[in-house]
């Protein structure tokens, strides 16, 4: 089964998992509000329900155990101590993993899964241990099949009589639930008698068709356990008044008998609601009447409703998050495009009005100014749609630190700051991996062992501070630990051993720190389970530069290290330098430009047959002619000596020769993928103020395509290697 319903389920899962995490973190932080526990229970329960509908057995089984433990907590039968919280946090991680596996078809770590299941089982009392969760079909909430997972039924199940009072609220009908199917499900379990209670049914002329007046008294004699009986009503939980009394209760038994008696001596039920077959119409058959009944409720059932489930209806309605709208990203992109076009359109219009041969254009210009402001407002509003707080991401990171601490035997706490800083959704998604890696490193390499910390006069518990803030149009994310800092002599030693730097290299402290980002660098003496996964900080750096951002490290020995990531607010907009190359306007990403300069002829040095080097303050960098590299011809003469000094990801520098530099501005990135495939030297396109398209260059591949610079690079690498 695939398609949009399942997609929606997974989208919902993400929200539910977030809610679970948030709740657990709150509990860990000392939150004792029973509503928090309830919220988590509901979230896990919803995941289980959805997973059941799609036949995701592993997920159902795990969620069920998880939920059962929470039910115990909810009912006050179990104390939420530190050990249990840790287990629940780990289980929540596993739940995420299972959802991911179900969505992406990946593998799950069976052993880990089983360990957690076993650990959860320890908290589940004996009689609750049967795992017969009945998955519900999507349309009708009727149990479909037994999952076949471990129904370790008690040896000799005793027949028991349940007396159920069931009164749907009108919301239940609104969700498409049908009492008939519920009764049918109950009937499959044993002897069933259903009696309609139409006492609250008002007269014909006072009936409100949109209200729900009917209630049923149900008597069920079955061998199945109470939880199975309850499971039947799982999907109408909160949508009905429900009470289930078991046999143990003498009064309930008497009631049941009375109900049975009433059943036999009450043939006067209205035909439309004949319940002999266990069926009943969902909505009464009478004509609508305008005057609403003056509050036929509260129902008598409400007082009897002593079972824990009866409360949930109220909880469901309480508080809740702000209403949100789930929209496909593509639609928002379309809107962003349209608004960008509106702004371009404005500037074109303004240009044409300025060109008009009319004496007085003041009025028009005033109006045009209003139009411009409005368009800007709309643009900001549309951009804000994509923006999301980094909070969920940071919450996930708390987990990473927990896991890493447990694995290394260190104690660390993560302090989050600026959780409400908003960043483009795509940026947030792609930040997850680099952050995970940096945090693992911070725990593994940064923070010292507790005894070492004590010896250094620090608190035993290491502190890692994760903060987000806006800084002049960019997002700044800082990961700061109070560990030992970068061990510079060792870093340098390793770099020399790995041939990354010459033995006699004189490096500044900053340069040594930055060696951590060099490809193939790893300080771990032995490959630890945690950070030595074959990926180094270079992967982190690439991920960040891939987002159009940059990363820096600063460190003070004995005091700790700080990683700073500066990112653009959105992936759709980029800071660019507008230049002209062979009569074409082009844009160079500002992140790759180190400096711009106007060079004179005496700065140019020839090397070999056609290599040219530019001397910049005593350093020689190869010159790469952009036009030549792109295969473009100039009609007019090039303005001599305009260069952009760029640095590639490998740290190589090159001077890009362009015709002229115009200005620096924010541009909207338009992907060329799917339009004309990949073009060497071009990263994407953008639309300029005059409606023309300009190419956004990719300095990396321009340099690669330039014969001079590429040859120079090879030469340099070879001399390095030797």
């Amino acid at each position, binding site marked *: 089964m695939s398609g949009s319903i399942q997609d929606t389920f997974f989208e919902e899962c993400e929200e539910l998992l977030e809610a679970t995490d948030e709740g657990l973190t709150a509990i860990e932080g000392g939150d004792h509000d029973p509503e928090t526990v309830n919220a988590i229970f509901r979230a896990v329960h919803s995941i289980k329900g959805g997973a059941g509908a799609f036949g995701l057995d592993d997920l159902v089984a795990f969620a069920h155990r998880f939920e059962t433990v929470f039910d115990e907590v909810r009912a006050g039968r179990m104390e939420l101590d530190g050990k249990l919280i840790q287990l629940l946090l780990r289980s929540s991680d596993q739940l995420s993993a299972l959802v991911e596996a179900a969505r992406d078809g990946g593998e799950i770590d069976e052993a880990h899964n089983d360990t957690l299941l076993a650990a959860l089982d320890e908290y589940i009392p004996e009689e609750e241990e049967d795992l017969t969760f009945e998955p519900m079909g999507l349309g009708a909430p009727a149990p479909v099949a037994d999952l076949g997972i471990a129904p370790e039924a008690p040896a000799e199940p005793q027949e028991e009589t349940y007396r159920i009072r069931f009164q749907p609220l009108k919301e239940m009908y609104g969700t498409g639930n049908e009492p008939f199917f519920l009764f049918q499900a109950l009937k499959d379990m044993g002897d069933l008698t259903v009696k309609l209670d139409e006492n609250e049914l008002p007269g014909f002329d006072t009936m409100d068709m949109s209200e729900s007046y009917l209630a049923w008294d149900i008597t069920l004699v079955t061998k199945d356990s109470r939880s199975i009986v309850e499971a039947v009503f799982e999907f109408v939980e909160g949508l009905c008044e429900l009470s289930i009394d078991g046999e143990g209760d003498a009064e309930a038994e008497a009631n049941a008998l009375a109900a049975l008696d009433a059943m036999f001596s009450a043939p006067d039920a209205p035909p439309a609601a004949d319940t002999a077959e266990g069926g009943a119409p969902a909505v009464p058959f009478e004509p609508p009447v305008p005057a609403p009944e003056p509050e036929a409720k509260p129902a008598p059932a409400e007082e009897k409703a002593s079972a824990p489930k009866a409360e949930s209806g109220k909880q469901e309605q309480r508080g809740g998050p702000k209403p949100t709208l789930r929209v496909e990203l593509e639609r928002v992109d379309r809107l962003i495009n*349209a608004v960008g076009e509106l702004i371009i359109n404005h500037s074109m219009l303004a240009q044409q009005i300025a060109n008009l041969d009319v004496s007085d254009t003041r009025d028009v210009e005033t109006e045009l100014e209003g139009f411009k402001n409005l368009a800007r407002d709309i643009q900001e509003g549309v951009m804000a749609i994509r923006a999301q707080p980094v909070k969920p991401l940071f919450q996930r990171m708390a987990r990473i630190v927990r896991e890493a601490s447990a694995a290394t035997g260190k104690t660390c706490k993560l302090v989050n700051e600026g959780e409400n800083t908003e960043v483009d959704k795509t940026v947030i998604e792609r930040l997850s991996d680099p952050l995970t890696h940096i945090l693992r490193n911070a725990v593994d390499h940064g923070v010292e062992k507790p005894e070492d910390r004590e010896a250094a006069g620090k608190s035993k518990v290491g502190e890692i501070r994760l903060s987000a803030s806006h800084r002049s149009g960019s997002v700044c994310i800082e990961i700061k630990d109070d560990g030992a800092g970068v061990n510079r002599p060792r870093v340098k030693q390793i770099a020399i051993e790995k041939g990354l730097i010459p033995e006699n290299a004189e490096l500044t402290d900053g340069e040594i720190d930055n060696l951590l980002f060099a490809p193939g660098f790893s300080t771990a003496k032995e490959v630890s389970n945690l950070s030595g996964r074959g990926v180094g900080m270079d992967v982190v750096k690439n991920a960040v530069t891939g987002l159009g951002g940059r990363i820096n490290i600063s460190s003070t020995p004995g005091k700790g290290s700080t990683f700073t990531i500066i990112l653009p607010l959105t992936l759709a907009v980029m800071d660019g330098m507008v230049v002209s190359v062979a009569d074409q306007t082009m844009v160079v990403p500002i992140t790759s430009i180190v400096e711009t300069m106007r060079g004179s002829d005496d700065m140019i040095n020839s090397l070999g047959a056609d290599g040219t080097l530019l001397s910049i303050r005593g350093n020689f960098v190869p010159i790469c002619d952009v036009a030549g590299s792109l*295969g*473009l011809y100039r009609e007019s003469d090039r303005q001599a000596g305009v260069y952009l000094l760029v640095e590639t990801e490998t740290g190589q520098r090159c001077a890009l020769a362009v015709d002229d530099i115009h200005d620096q501005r924010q541009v909207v990135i338009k992907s060329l993928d799917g*339009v*004309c495939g990949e073009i060497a030297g071009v990263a994407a396109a953008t639309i300029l103020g005059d409606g023309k*398209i300009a*190419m956004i260059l990719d300095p990396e591949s321009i340099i690669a*395509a330039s014969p001079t610079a590429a040859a120079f690079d090879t030469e340099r690498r070879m001399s390095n290697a030797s």
Partner: protein
Amino acid sequence: MQAEAKHTDQEVKHAEHSEFVSFTVAGQAFCLKITQIREIRRWSPVTILPHAPADVLGVMNLRGAVIPIYDLSARFGLQQTEASERNVVIVVSVHGKPVGLLAESVSEIISINPDDIQDTPPVDSRNTMEYIQGIISHDDTMVRIINLDAVISAPEQVMP
């Protein structure tokens, strides 16, 4: 009753006709089904793509979308279209993506009965044969029906 039946008959007959837009490319008459065309725009300078083959003129801005423009003439193996005031860009949708086709000029909308479409007679020009679905005679001229999917195959890989 009879009159009514006849009317329906005519309608059916009419429905069989498809409307085509005819235009000139390198002096030859071509046409495309009107439903394949999204819009026809006046020619305006495009932004050239580095390393692009001769038949890819570049890209242009269509209300915020970047679309590639092909020179139909060069695509058919004929000489490149000369710049002229009458040049038009026919925007079509191929594989769900908008693509612009440069033609010399548009002519008219013609209604064609599918029965009148003749198979392309074999000529010694493989390139053309692939791109032409069939031909029809209209006002004593031969109009070539373009096979759009063949002209613009899946997203192009423009490599040096």
